């Protein structure tokens, strides 16, 4: 069994943003040399997420609005203080909680050299506390 791990950087440009990474992931996975196995797509941060949905702007807006509705900005969160290990204010509890709702990872099969997805499935890297330079891992495991 082989394991190929690629780290990809993304410069996000908004506070909250759904970035379609489907083609980036497919291209990276299919150039790994592995033809049969699985592809893990994982964010390296705790205020971003990876999610899969139909690639439509109205759904992107609905998902974003759902996150803001479920996790409003102005509540009395505990994570609202100076974080000594960072040397900066940790006042982004809503970003962490929205990320927790969506999750950090998704996985797809590799079959006969292609990453297999449903016709409407779009893979999103979701920025929840941008703009920041971010990284995600594309990990292909198989033969």
């Amino acid at each position, binding site marked *: 069994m082989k394991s190929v791990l690629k780290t990809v950087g993304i*410069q*996000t*440009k*908004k*506070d909250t943003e759904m970035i379609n990474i489907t083609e980036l992931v497919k291209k990276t996975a299919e150039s790994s040399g592995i033809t049969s196995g699985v592809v893990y797509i994982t964010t390296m941060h705790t205020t971003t997420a990876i999610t899969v949905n139909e690639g439509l702007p109205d759904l992107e807006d609905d998902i974003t609005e759902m996150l803001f509705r479920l996790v409003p900005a*102005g509540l009395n969160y505990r994570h*609202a*203080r*100076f974080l*000594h*290990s*960072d*040397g*900066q*204010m940790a*006042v*982004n509890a809503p970003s962490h909680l929205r990320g927790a709702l969506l999750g950090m990872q998704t996985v797809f099969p590799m079959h006969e050299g292609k990453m297999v997805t449903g016709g409407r499935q779009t893979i999103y890297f979701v920025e929840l*506390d*941008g*703009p*920041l*330079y971010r990284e995600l891992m594309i990990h292909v495991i198989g033969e």
Partner: protein
Amino acid sequence: MIDIHTHPVQVADLYDGDPNLTRAVRDVFGFYVKPQPLDTFLYQLDEAGIDQAVLLPIDCTTTHGCKIVSNEQIVELVEKSDRFIGFASVDPLQPNAPKDLEKAIKSYGLRGLKLDPSLQGFSLHHDEYVYPIFQVCEELDIPVLLHCGMSWSPIGRAELAQPIHLERIIHRFPNVRMIIAQFGWPWVAESLMLALKHQNVYLDTSILFSGTPPESFRHVVEKVIGLETFDRSLHQQVVFGSSYPRVDPKRVVGAIKEMGFRESLEKKIFHDNAARLLKLEGQSL
């Protein structure tokens, strides 16, 4: 919108050519988050709605043997984006400080002076080295942003940065525009007294003592100063400052917008007061 208080210590571009900067930022400034590309900083300004940002260095040569971003590095960043306004920093404990300041303004084109007594380790009561620096500020007609109050640096000494220590300097240099950072928290009453009495004293909004920026800002404005006093007496002397990267500028902008100030007051805080003290009036942003 103008952010008068940013420290470009998270800009990755600066670290490549300066191996000492990592130590200065971590061990002296007390900031431990991974650097980001310069573009990230510009996008963060965009997201916050900020058109221009003042970049602040801190020269700690005598006390800590380092510069938390040098004047030359500030120039390097200013040359990369016309959205940046560069301030200089000189170490008051160095004999060449007045001449270094003159050079930074006249030769490098920097637009103001940043002093941080708590990190630079000097006393504002030592006229022999403090007065010559303010003399240059007066002659060159440049503003001075002074870190006052608590320092988030683990080795910063707040006792050196108590706002009341500025009173003699304000009396001696009534024409020098001085910005007291973070309302001098926790000595807000001292900063308020100085600003009420002296029209050349400005206060910046980077109040970050605990909780969220909206909570910190609201507490100081409503509970310590009072909304009426803030609106009536400080409307021309409060300037927007975020203290990036201690906090993301978008959150400090949000804190001020949440106050629900009248539109004219908000405009003065976000732009007009800073434009006047930086002498940017008439320049397009």
